[in-house]
Structure formats: structure tokens, C-alpha cells
């Protein structure tokens, strides 16, 4: 139990003196997770609404693939991305392996199915309520999608939080494709994995505390935003 008090002291110390290495891993965690989450929203949200409001070619295939990817173990996704981005793989010429970009790619694959599934659920409900009116108005497909997303924006905030929470806690896939390189692809979660394996349990716990606090802060901001929007 004395590890907990040591960890708290370590965490406050790292924050207090603005330790450079510590700040860089916090920055990278936030950067990679936010980028992947926003990209997943941009790709997945319109797709999710489209699934609810229209029948298009490939719709069944999209639902099937998206749901299947929901259940895929993250470390397997990491391995597949690794093989694809490796120099001897199909996308090797981009040289993306062991870079933050590779981590964003892996997270994007993990997050987009979540965004699609949750948005689909929300849109199906909203379409039931507003679909009739929108079709009478003659709204086009893309316009309807935008309107549904605007109406459901408070729920979309929850979708953002679900995806971001998933992203910030990812460790298996990003360690495989990122290589946990000090000062370059080391995030909070991969640093925790490393410090734990070195037996530096208090430091690992300290990083964990900061990670939880960060997650809490993001959730708090979203909560306040949602409340403001509901007014």
C-alpha cells in the first residue's frame, strides 16, 4: 500500500516540475488518441447515419464488417497493421512502421466500428421521429445525415467519449506498430507497460493516476458541454 502514496508523490512531482519526458508522453497520448477519435468520427458518424436512413449497395456488407471488427482483439489488429506497414509488406514504401502515424492507423481501425455502431443506433431512433418530416421536406441524403447528426449532437458527444476512452486506453496494438520508442512513440499506456515490466511499480502507478485524471477531465468537459447544449 505504501506504493500508492509513493505513486501519488511521484505523480505530483512529475506534474509540478514539468518533467520533459513525462510531458512528451502525455502530449503523444492525447495527440494520437484525439487524432484517431476525430478521424473515426468523421468517417464513422456519416456512415452510421447512412446505415439507418437508406438502403444502399454494400449496406449489409458494411454492417457485417463493422460488427465483426468490434469483436476483434486489438493486438490482432496491431499485428495486421504491422504486417501491412512493414517494409516487406504491401504499404511498406510509406515507411510508416514504428511512427505515431502507424499508431493512429491502428487506433482508427479499432475506433471506427464503435462510432458506426453507436451512431447507427442513435440515428435509427431519431429517423423514426424526424425521418418523415425530413423526407416531406425533400432533404437529400447528405443533408439528412447532417441534420440527424446536428439533432443528436448531445448523443454524439457520448459517442466521442466512448471512442476517446477506447483510444486513450489502448496498449496492445500501439506497442506492436509503434515500437514504444522513447521520445517518439511512447504513450502513457505503453510507458506504464514498460515501467511495470522493469519493476518500477510506483512510477507505473503514478502514470496510471495521471492517465485516469486526464480521462476524467475530458469527460468532465464533455459533460458540461452536453448540459449547455441541452438548454
Amino acid at each position, binding site marked *: 500500500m505504501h506504493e500508492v502514496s509513493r505513486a501519488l508523490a511521484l505523480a505530483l512531482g512529475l506534474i509540478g516540475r514539468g518533467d520533459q519526458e513525462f510531458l512528451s508522453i502525455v502530449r503523444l497520448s492525447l495527440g494520437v488518441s484525439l487524432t484517431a477519435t476525430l478521424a473515426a468520427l468523421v468517417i464513422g458518424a456519416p456512415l452510421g447515419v447512412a446505415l439507418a436512413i437508406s438502403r444502399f449497395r454494400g449496406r449489409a456488407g458494411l454492417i457485417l464488417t463493422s460488427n465483426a471488427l468490434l469483436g476483434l482483439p486489438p493486438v490482432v489488429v496491431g499485428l495486421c497493421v504491422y504486417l501491412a506497414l512493414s*517494409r*516487406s*509488406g504491401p504499404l511498406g514504401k510509406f515507411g510508416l*512502421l514504428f511512427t505515431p502515424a502507424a499508431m493512429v492507423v491502428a487506433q482508427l481501425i479499432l475506433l471506427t466500428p464503435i462510432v458506426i455502431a453507436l451512431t447507427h443506433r442513435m440515428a435509427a431512433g431519431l429517423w423514426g421521429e424526424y425521418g418523415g418530416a425530413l423526407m416531406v421536406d425533400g432533404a437529400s441524403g447528405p443533408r439528412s445525415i447532417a441534420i440527424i447528426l446536428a439533432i443528436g449532437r448531445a448523443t454524439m458527444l457520448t459517442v466521442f467519449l466512448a471512442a476517446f476512452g477506447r483510444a486513450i486506453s489502448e496498449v496492445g496494438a500501439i506497442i506492436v506498430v509503434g515500437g514504444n*520508442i522513447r521520445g517518439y512513440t511512447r504513450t502513457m499506456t505503453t510507458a506504464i507497460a*514498460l515501467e511495470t*515490466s522493469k*519493476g518500477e*511499480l510506483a512510477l507505473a502507478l503514478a502514470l496510471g493516476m495521471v492517465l485516469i485524471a486526464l480521462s476524467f477531465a475530458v469527460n468532465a468537459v464533455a459533460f458540461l458541454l452536453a448540459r449547455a447544449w441541452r438548454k
Partner: protein
Amino acid sequence: MHVVAVGTGQALAIGARGDADALLVHDRKGEDKFIADRNGIDRRDVMYNDFVLVGPKSDPAGVKGLRDVQEAFARIAHASASFASRGDDSGTNRMELRIWSLLDLEPRGASWYRELGSGMGATLNTAVEMNAYVLTDRASWAHFQNRGDLAILVEGDKRLLNPYGSILVNPAKWPNVKAEPARIWHEWLTSADGQAAITSYRVNGEQLFFVGKPGDSAPSQ
């Protein structure tokens, strides 16, 4: 310079796929095969340290103070004492398996032999919890904070010497390799400056890596 820290087996595999520019590894047989397969060029001796056999202070197999690691392994097997293995095809794992095979013993499958598939730190953590014997390099042990009831029991056997080699990934096979920066690093390692940097590295005042021929400066005190 970007350092991806993995075991020797994985490092050689990464190099064989062209995903690295230079390797620093410790398994001579694996390194020689890497060169023979045209995956790398210009293998150089860089430094060495040694492995130590760490185990519970209570020493159920009675190996403390032995200078012969083969004898120590034989006693551990005979006593069916808990042994934690990295089981991850790292240089350390390859060294450990070589000792078992010299004894004509196959420990995998035995209930006292725990194959963990983990890096050195994680393996040490688990060994502490299991109160098991474990083969580790001296540098990892020096860094390790969570020692529990374990201590170094066997050291100094010449067979436990652990030489590291630097290899350049073959630019003829992988044109994308950053050959010039890799060569600068590779040559620095064996230059006077590089060798001085290696020998001046200390943890808790202890020198962990040695250069030159083993025997010039013995790694164990």
C-alpha cells in the same frame, strides 16, 4: 535515432523484414545466420557482459556459490525447483536453452519450468512472485527494483559470458535503409569514443558492460 527495444530473436526478424537500419543483439549463432542469409553486413563485436543465475535466498536446489552453471541447472532440474524462463526467443532465452541442451535435458513441459514469453523485466517480476530461479543478464538485474527474496546465486562461469554484436541491415537487399546514419552509429560503437561511453556506464557505481577480450577485465567482482 529511434530505438526499438526487443529481444534478439525479434530484432533479427525485424531486420530481416527491412524495418530497421542497424541491430545491436546478443546471440552469435543467430547473428551469423543473419549474415549468411544476406540480411546483414559487417558484424562487429561491441561489448560483453555476463549472465547470472538469480534465485531464492533459501536456495532449495543448493546451487549457491557454484562456478559451473551447467551443474547448477542440473541441480535445479533434479530438485524440481521453480525456474522462470523468458521463453521469447531472446538472446537470454537462447543462452538458457543452450545450457539445458548441453545437459541433454528438455525442461519444457515440466511442472517446475515456467515458460513466460516475456521480456527480462516482466520475467524477473514473475520470478520474484514465484520465488523461482531465473537466468538474467547482470545489467537487467542491476536496474531491477523489485527483487523480493531473490539474489545472485551463481556467477563467473565462462559459459555465461554474453557478447553483443552490431550488424548493419543489408542496404543491397533493402534500398530504403538509412545506410549512412546507420554506418556512423555502427562505427561509433567500436570507436574509442563509443567504447569509452560503454565502459563508463554505471548503475549504482557498478560497471555493467565491458570491451575487449573477456579476461582483460573480469565482469564479476
